[in-house]
């Protein structure tokens, strides 16, 4: 697939609490950065897709807050609820349908404004589950246990993900938590929910990302070389955690296979050069790597220890610092895509992988990775 490309990306700094900024302020900043990046003005944008979540934003029809700031006035605009990768997917279809030549996609969230435990508790079924009192952390901790039990992954290996990603974030001026830490420090940090320590969990964050996707015949007008969309797919698993094999991400496996098939990739572990994955918790990076076929089953922990996923490894993973270093939900997946774009353009500075031409990005919706969206991007058409 070579019909569309990413021609501009922009993101705010990821911070704990952007007290000066409302949603529109963040979107305005990210959109203007994306337009500058693309060498475009708002008049070059044919349509807009904003991405937000009514629960996180504390507002029904949360997208209303950002329609002016995203330049959607007098344009066709739509609003996806969920991770930004899903917003980008809808934006892509609006180009492939032939209706529009360019789509501006935004995704924003301010975790600082709400109580995330209550927001994610509301994702549990109100009749069968909610009163039990779970949230995203306690659910994912359960999945971490199931994954570790099956794959024999150790707490030290989980901690190593945190060490790597916080360390990588030191090269990313927009990251919230750049840190030089040790495995021992991760394991000594507060136990939030067994087996997840505080440093196994991503922080609460504010941030916004914007992206401009263009049809093939419009990429020539952009300021920078296009990053081509070679494959994109998404898939949802069962809702009830007890209906799934929680130690595996079957929906991710399916979405990744479809995206790789579209891109003509037969051996992702060798043909992908850089990956930005949804590491909301340390175990997720390892579990998603295996589920996507970026490494063999039960091997992610060992390969991590061998340095394969370091910036100078053979498959750098979350060279940006990942979500562990800043996690504005909803924007999170779109930021992963933007970071892959930066890598493929050679703009990642100290986090730059060596000459990558193919990268993957992933976004997640729902509890314990129920629904995934996978993007395969390439510097080459």
């Amino acid at each position: 697939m070579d019909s569309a490309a990413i021609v501009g990306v922009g993101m705010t700094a990821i911070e704990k609490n952007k007290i000066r900024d409302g949603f529109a302020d963040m979107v305005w900043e990210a959109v203007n950065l994306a337009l500058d990046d693309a060498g475009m003005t708002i008049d070059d944008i044919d349509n807009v897709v904003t991405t937000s979540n009514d629960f996180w934003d504390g507002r029904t029809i949360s997208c209303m807050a950002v329609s002016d700031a995203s330049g959607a006035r007098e344009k066709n605009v739509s609003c996806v609820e969920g991770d930004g990768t899903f917003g980008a997917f809808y934006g892509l279809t609006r180009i492939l349908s032939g209706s529009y030549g360019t789509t501006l996609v935004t995704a924003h969230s301010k975790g600082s404004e709400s109580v995330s435990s209550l927001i994610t508790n509301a994702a549990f079924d109100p009749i069968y589950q909610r009163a039990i009192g779970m949230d995203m952390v306690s659910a994912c901790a359960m999945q971490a246990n199931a994954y570790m039990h099956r794959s024999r992954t150790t707490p030290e290996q989980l901690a190593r993900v945190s060490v790597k990603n916080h360390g990588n974030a030191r090269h990313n001026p927009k990251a919230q938590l750049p840190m030089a830490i040790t495995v021992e420090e991760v394991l000594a940090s507060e136990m939030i929910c067994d087996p997840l320590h505080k440093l196994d969990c991503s922080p609460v964050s504010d941030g916004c990302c914007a992206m401009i996707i263009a049809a093939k015949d419009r990429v020539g007008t952009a300021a920078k070389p296009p990053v081509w969309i070679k494959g994109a797919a998404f898939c949802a698993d069962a809702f009830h955690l007890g209906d799934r094999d929680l130690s595996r991400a079957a929906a991710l496996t399916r979405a990744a296979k479809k995206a790789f098939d579209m891109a003509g990739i037969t051996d992702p572990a060798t043909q992908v050069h850089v990956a930005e994955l949804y590491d909301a918790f340390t175990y997720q990076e390892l579990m998603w790597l295996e589920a996507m076929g970026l490494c063999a089953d039960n091997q992610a922990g060992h390969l991590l220890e061998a340095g394969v996923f370091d910036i100078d490894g053979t498959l750098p993973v979350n060279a940006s610092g990942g979500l562990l270093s800043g996690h504005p939900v909803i924007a999170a997946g779109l930021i992963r895509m933007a970071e892959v774009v930066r890598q493929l353009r050679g703009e990642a500075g100290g986090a730059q992988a060596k000459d990558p031409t193919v990268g993957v990005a992933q976004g997640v919706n729902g509890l314990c990775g129920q629904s995934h969206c996978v993007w395969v991007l390439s510097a080459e058409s």
Partner: protein
Amino acid sequence: MSDTEHVIIESGAARQPFNYAVGLHGSRFLQELRDHRRFMAVKCPRCAKVYIPPRRVCGACFVEMDEFVEVGPQGTIGTFTILRYAFIDPETGVQKPVPYGYGFIRLDGADTLFQHYIDIQDESRVKIGARVEPVFADERKGTVKDIRCFRIID
């Protein structure tokens, strides 16, 4: 077990607290209202439209705005209704007493309307185009409720 009994699950005391950032444009407005009983609107540098409440971006022009202009405090009723059915205010969980006036005020000098309550002591005087002035709350805290309502002055 009764087959006709429909089971209901209730949310009970569950609620979601929020700390909404007002933004700097809005903060300036609320502080002027609280401290000086002044209405500060913002003017678009391109189309010259005067917006209240002030906001950062003119949606029509896609430009940032930073020229504040004082508007009001008097204005005219742009449109209105008189609410006669009661509902639960989701913020307080309590019903507001009805009837009450609810309208959109065109403050002198502003191009957009300002939503608020309208005093309806004499319903016959409440009409589109009627002149109004704000009635301020005794204790002002920096919210739009620092205005109690608008009252008819002609």
